[in-house]
């Protein structure tokens, strides 16, 4: 039984926001699909050697699939980059999901691990890899067990020419960055390293390494079966295919949704049952940007669509700020967490992030010392772009977007020492669940 590509299992059939491609059968059971069930839903695993290297790369390129890990880099370009280098390559599947506000990768691996493992096998064939690694966060024992079981199933059925090694890594925020994975696999700490060279040039064991998000690889698995044309049947405007997105906060049904790429932010909010009184959202997770809902509701939830408002979907994460909650408080707590998660390798990040976290904290608690705005704006310019990785940049972007989105409130905090948001609400609004600002468990 092949996937019925014309059925749109959406809540709202006319709008067709929600689609089932990766998520077929998820509402029936919370258990991982077995290999048999997987083949039953999607058909047999495509024979990668029959497709040929150019076959798969050509399809992925025609589909214009972009990375689902947050950077949105064109997948075919990355794969071609690795394939063009001499010598055997390595495939690394990134299932770490260090972003606390995101759950899509965990959900995908827990329900449809074979889609991801198909994608790994196909990518390995396409780039000429002889080794593959799947990296997971070591705090998620439950997920590691599920994935190991799926790998074992395939080993017994002898379906994968390239062996997949499953690894559990430290759970820190920067540990899911691609150079962190490569560094750890090479025996080092799960901390970002200097680039150049980028992993596609020289990565694991000095070989050209393809690092892809697990969702990206799952899409590759479906493109290999049904083709680029099928992939592009979904998608609005210039966006193609579907994407998994995590919605949380003041919504009736928080969780992971598979939506049509290019859907408007407002449609996604409506679909999840967002509180009509909510006024602000955080798009893109902890490295993302805060917006007033009115500013973004009509815009596509894509990188291109959000660019005019300096936003980006990141790893497709949406947090809806509850009405009456103070966005500055949540932004300050996120910044505190990001500061604690610095790999402590570069001065501007190590010292700069705690400094702006302190400044933003002062603003958020309406107890400013001196001129926190002046300090923040000066420091934003000094911190971004001066680290080895994009951690300080992402933190600065989130913080400066909070000042922009909650500008009026920020001034009220600073000048008149009152909070406009809490003044408006009758009761205490819930705060965003942010992990403790400590590094637990080391880097190795």
């Amino acid at each position, binding site marked *: 039984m092949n996937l019925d590509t014309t059925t749109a299992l959406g809540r709202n059939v006319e709008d067709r926001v929600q689609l089932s491609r990766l998520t077929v059968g998820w509402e029936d059971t919370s258990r991982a699909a077995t290999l048999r069930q997987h083949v039953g839903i999607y058909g047999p695993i495509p024979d990668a050697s029959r497709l040929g290297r150019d076959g798969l790369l050509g399809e992925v390129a025609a589909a214009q699939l972009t990375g689902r890990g947050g950077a949105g880099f064109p997948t075919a370009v990355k794969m071609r980059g690795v394939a063009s280098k001499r010598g055997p390559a390595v495939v690394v599947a990134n299932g770490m999901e260090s972003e606390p506000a995101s759950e899509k990768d965990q959900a995908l691996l827990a329900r449809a691990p074979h889609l991801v493992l198909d994608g790994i096998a196909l990518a390995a064939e396409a780039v000429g890899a002889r080794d593959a690694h799947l990296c997971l966060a070591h705090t998620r024992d439950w997920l590691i067990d599920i994935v190991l079981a799926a790998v074992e199933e395939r080993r017994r059925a002898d379906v994968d020419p390239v062996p997949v090694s499953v690894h559990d890594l430290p759970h820190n925020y920067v540990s899911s960055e691609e150079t962190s994975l490569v560094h750890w696999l090479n025996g080092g700490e799960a901390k970002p*390293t*200097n*680039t*150049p060279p*980028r992993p596609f040039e020289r990565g694991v064991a000095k070989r050209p390494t393809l690092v892809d998000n697990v969702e990206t690889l799952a899409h590759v698995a479906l493109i290999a079966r049904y083709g680029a044309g099928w992939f592009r049947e979904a998608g609005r405007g210039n966006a193609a295919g579907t994407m998994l997105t995590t919605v949380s906060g003041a919504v009736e049904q928080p969780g992971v949704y598979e939506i049509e790429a290019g859907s408007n932010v407002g449609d996604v909010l409506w679909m999840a049952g967002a509180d009509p009184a909510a006024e602000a959202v955080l798009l893109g997770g902890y490295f993302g940007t805060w917006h007033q809902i009115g500013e973004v509701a009509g815009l596509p939830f894509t990188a291109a669509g959000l660019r005019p408002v300096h936003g980006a979907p990141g790893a497709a994460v949406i947090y809806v700020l509850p009405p009456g909650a103070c966005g500055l408080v949540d932004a300050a707590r996120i910044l505190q967490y990001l500061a604690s998660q610095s790999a402590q*390798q*570069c*001065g*501007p990040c190590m*010292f*700069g992030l705690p*400094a702006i976290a302190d400044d933003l904290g002062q603003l958020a608690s309406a107890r400013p010392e001196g001129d926190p705005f002046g300090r923040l704006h000066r420091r934003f310019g*000094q911190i971004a772009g*001066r*680290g*080895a990785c994009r951690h300080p940049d992402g933190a600065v972007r989130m913080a400066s977007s909070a000042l922009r989105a909650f500008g009026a409130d920020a001034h009220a905090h600073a000048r008149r020492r009152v909070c406009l948001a809490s003044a408006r609400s009758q009761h205490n609004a819930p705060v965003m669940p942010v992990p403790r600002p400590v590094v637990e468990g080391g880097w190795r």
Partner: protein
Amino acid sequence: MSLKLEINPIACTGHGLCADLAPELVELDEWGYPIIHDRVPNDLAVHARRAVNACPTLALRLSRSQRHKEQN
């Protein structure tokens, strides 16, 4: 064909000798870490070279720039 001064931010531990030797090219931020002005005019090349050699952790590098540094 001009010279470019580049820093390895992981190797840099903020000694600040570079700012002493080439103040026109290097300014220190409030935490003692260098902000590099990467285009090196030819008349400052010798000072840039001295700064590179003086760095206790060899975090600075001087190179001939061909094109704009690739952003990742």
